[in-house]
């Protein structure tokens, strides 16, 4: 048995409501962190996981206070120390890595200076030793040429590099415990896999204990030894990572795992009904009672205790966990009927290129083309009626840009977009007629931003109805009620403001608004990436059902390959604004594929500790697409030579029907990738 580095005993944290009622955020947390192990804290937003992680370094957010219990770091209660005493612990003994390193680094100070500052505060090194140490640290986080890197400003680094610098700063004081708050959430898939790999190695090399807070079970599976699952401010399940992810004996964890789309499965994941109770709204019985499929009357009345099962080394908070053990082995796969795509073109993108560069006045006057290398170039996609086509790629791949130009928000530089076979869509929104505008609707990533906070649901949904159909009075009202029905919400939602809705409900309203126009095409811009996994599954399910019902065509933009696999019929893979591969989704996910698709698929994190991501390419980010040759030349692990740098690769058709744009012969690719 390893010694405990941190022990949390019966910790409760809460706040006082305006009426003086005490509301708990964390309820009776008891756990400990052992020396040298990595513990994952998992939960959906609002489950209290970040509050717990902050409490572990003796920090309670302003407005919150401890209502009981203690947090012992080497038998010293952190929550009773004053600021001066905490200063000696924070940074030196316990360090934290924030979620968004881009915001955590001071923008006007050089990387080297910021690391030196951390060293000056947390160590007793002399000035020369510190300079030596900066290079060592940057080497340790695998940043290339540390001497040059130290002289850069944060904005000169990519997101992954910034996160590495944050890790280096946290390691400066040689902490015994490292807290990581969603350290890879904002990063691209390939970068994320690389950073996780780095964290794992650091844990192994230095023997530092780590606490890894994340909502992403895929990331947890890769780095953690032990997992704590939180729900509504309580620990509901705790145990070794394999046991938790392979035999989840708590119904919440079970449901959570089932709602994650996986590459190995086809079809939509199961969704969990309902949402997490708000703090202060938790009933008498089990906090998961409302959403549980395995509950009985006892769960409604009594709160289950965290029970330790020695044979599994797992603690679980459920009365019926023994029944669950047998049920978890059953795998019910809900197959979404992948329809044969009939060729009935509704949208045709032909040689589309889009440029953000603005022409100067003189160049405009001389009719000179200034930007020979536009952000998005040579996009040819035909979209058929009733299909779901997904545009996939990392940030900067131009997927949202293409979406905007279909919606008319961005002008195309060259090429055209044809709608319904003959109608040419104008690049200027003002020149499109109302009918064309109605036919194409958008759903955005973040419902907090896409719904006007000062409008009620009724006002939000009445906008398109009034604009396109001129509805008023009782007709308008009944149409709104009908729409709410369609997205599985009651008519009583009409009088609510967006702030009174949960994330999933907000996104349903956004979906309802798009469908209000009775569109032919709906453009979905990362519609599920701001949502929790269980909610994501429900929204995907809703989108799928609405499509079956109404025959709408979706253009679905996402960075998440597993989500795309679950919902789409066809996939187009983009890199730096150029198409790499396009084809039916079941074929794109199989080899042979474009080297970039291969990299992307390899980097997907599955919630299974036995499936490791394949890291094939470097996670460098290129700022600009190359002038000539293949767009992926800079990162391609299979680059064959000068031909890739000088000549635009040709389209090759694989035997499955997916088109790949690569210089490597398709037969060779097949051999190399198998």
């Amino acid at each position, binding site marked *: 048995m390893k010694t405990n580095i941190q022990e949390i005993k019966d910790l409760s944290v809460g706040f006082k409501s305006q009426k003086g009622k005490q509301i708990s955020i964390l309820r009776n947390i008891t756990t400990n962190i052992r020396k040298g192990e990595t513990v994952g804290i998992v939960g959906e937003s609002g489950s209290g996981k970040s509050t717990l992680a902050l409490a572990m370094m003796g920090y309670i957010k302003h407005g919150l206070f401890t209502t009981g219990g203690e947090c012992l770091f080497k038998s010293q209660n952190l929550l009773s120390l004053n600021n001066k005493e905490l200063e000696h612990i924070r940074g030196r003994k316990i360090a934290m890595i924030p979620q968004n390193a881009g915001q955590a680094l001071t923008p006007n100070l050089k990387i080297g200076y910021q690391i030196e500052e951390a060293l000056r505060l947390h160590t007793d090194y002399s000035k020369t030793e510190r300079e030596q140490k900066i290079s060592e640290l940057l080497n340790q986080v695998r940043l290339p040429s540390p001497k040059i890197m130290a002289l850069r400003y944060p904005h000169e680094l990519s997101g992954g590099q910034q996160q590495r610098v944050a890790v280096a700063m946290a390691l400066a004081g040689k902490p015994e415990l490292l807290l990581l708050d969603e350290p890879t959430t904002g990063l691209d898939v390939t970068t994320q896999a690389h950073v996780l790999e780095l964290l794992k190695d650091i844990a192994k090399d230095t023997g530092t204990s780590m606490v890894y807070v994340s909502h992403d079970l895929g990331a947890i599976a890769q780095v953690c030894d032990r997992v704590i699952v939180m729900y509504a401010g309580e620990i509901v399940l705790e145990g070794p990572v394999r046991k938790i992810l392979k035999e989840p004996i708590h119904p919440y964890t079970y449901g959570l795992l089932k709602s994650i789309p996986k590459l190995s499965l086809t079809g939509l994941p199961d969704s969990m009904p309902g949402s997490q109770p*708000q703090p*202060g709204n938790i009933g008498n019985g089990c906090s998961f009672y409302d959403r549980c499929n395995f509950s009985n009357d006892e769960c409604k009345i009594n709160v289950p205790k965290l029970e330790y099962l020695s044979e599994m080394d797992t603690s679980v908070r459920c009365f019926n966990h023994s029944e669950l053990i047998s049920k978890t082995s059953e795998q019910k796969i809900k197959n979404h009927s992948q329809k044969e795509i009939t060729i009935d073109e509704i949208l045709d993108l032909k040689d589309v290129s889009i440029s953000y560069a603005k022409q100067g006045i003189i160049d405009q006057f001389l009719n000179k083309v200034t930007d020979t290398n536009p952000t998005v170039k040579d996009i040819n996609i035909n979209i058929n009626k009733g299909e779901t086509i997904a545009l996939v790629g990392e940030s900067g791949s131009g997927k949202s840009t293409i979406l905007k130009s279909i919606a008319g*928000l961005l002008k195309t530089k060259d090429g055209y977009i044809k709608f319904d076979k003959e109608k040419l869509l104008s690049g200027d929104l003002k020149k499109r007629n109302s009918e064309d505008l109605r036919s194409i609707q*958008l759903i*955005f990533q973040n419902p907090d931003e896409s719904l*006007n906070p000062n409008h009620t649901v009724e006002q939000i949904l009445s906008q*398109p109805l009034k604009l396109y159909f001129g509805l008023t009075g009782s007709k308008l009202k009944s149409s709104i009620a009908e729409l709410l029905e369609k997205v599985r919400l009651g008519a009583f939602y009409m009088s609510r403001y967006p702030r009174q809705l949960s994330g999933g409900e907000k996104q349903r309203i956004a979906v309802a608004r798009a469908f209000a126009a009775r569109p032919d095409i709906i453009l979905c811009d990362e519609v599920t990436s701001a949502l929790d996994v269980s909610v994501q599954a429900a929204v995907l399910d809703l989108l799928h059902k609405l499509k079956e019902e109404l025959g709408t065509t979706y253009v679905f933009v996402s960075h998440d390959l597993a989500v795309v696999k679950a919902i789409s019929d066809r996939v187009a893979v983009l890199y730096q604004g150029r198409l790499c591969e396009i084809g039916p989704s079941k074929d794109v996910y199989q080899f042979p594929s474009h080297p970039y698709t291969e990299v992307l698929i390899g980097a997907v994190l599955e919630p299974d500790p036995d499936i490791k991501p394949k890291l094939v390419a470097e996670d460098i980010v290129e700022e600009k697409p190359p002038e000539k040759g293949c767009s992926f030349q800079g990162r391609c692990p299979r680059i064959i030579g000068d031909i890739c740098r000088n000549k635009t690769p040709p389209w090759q058709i694989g035997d499955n029907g997916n088109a790949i744009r690569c210089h490597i012969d398709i037969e060779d690719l097949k051999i190399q990738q198998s």
Partner: protein
Amino acid sequence: MENSKNIFNEKPKGSLAKALDVISTMASKPSGFIGLAILVFHITLAITSPWFAPYDYKAINPSLMLNAPSSEFWFGTDSLGRDVFTRTILGGRTALTITFFGSIIALLWGGLLGIFCGLVGGRIDDIVMRIVDAFLSIPWILAMLLIVSILGTTTEVLIPALGFFYGKGIVRVARAATHDVIAKDFIVSAKARGHSNLSIIWNEILPNVRDAILVEGAMRWSWMLLGFSSLSFLGFGVSPPTPDWGLMISNARGLMSFAWWAVISPIVGLSSLIIGINLTADAFAKALGIDRSTKAPV
């Protein structure tokens, strides 16, 4: 998150109920309560004073020149023997009326132009804002003096002139507030649906920038009051014998050393009104959740 239960059961309120809510929040803090009390007192006084003013404000009586405050003349008399109390309670009427309507004009043109510039952006925005900047660099008092000396000091000239000069600041505030909103997806969504610019301004932007603009308007009101009184002080505001604080201060200041009462009453009147408006505007901003302390005054 706070009071989550409450939020979920909250019924949408009518605009009157919302206004009452805001006012009660304002009055719940001492500074807001004092500000509101002073403002209400001044407005009531301005409306009702003609009915209970003890003397005729223009009755000149040489035998009563510069009498000290007494039971007969509570605030004393001025250099022409007129009752200072009468003239003080009547002295805020013109200033309040002119600046009130001036503020509304400033709010309307400043707010709308600011929102418009924020929405369209680009070259139009650039040009309009440079013009506004150019106007901001002109000392307003000189420009006002020029205008009133050409067009006269009638109400019809003063209200729009003051409204114009104090609206420039509001343009900038409205534009900045619009910029915060304009990048949000709900505006993009409205644009993509094909709503007209006017409909976007009215339905999507205005509800989100209204609070910021109203607070700025309230602040401008107190500035305008000070400005108008300065004009009167210089002799370009209200023409005698109409009582006005600025004019009264100007007339009595030479005699300050031996007839302090003639100058102190209008000073107290003017400054208390300005303090009242400022406190109210601050409380108003706080009640709406806008923190003015983080924003530099424009």
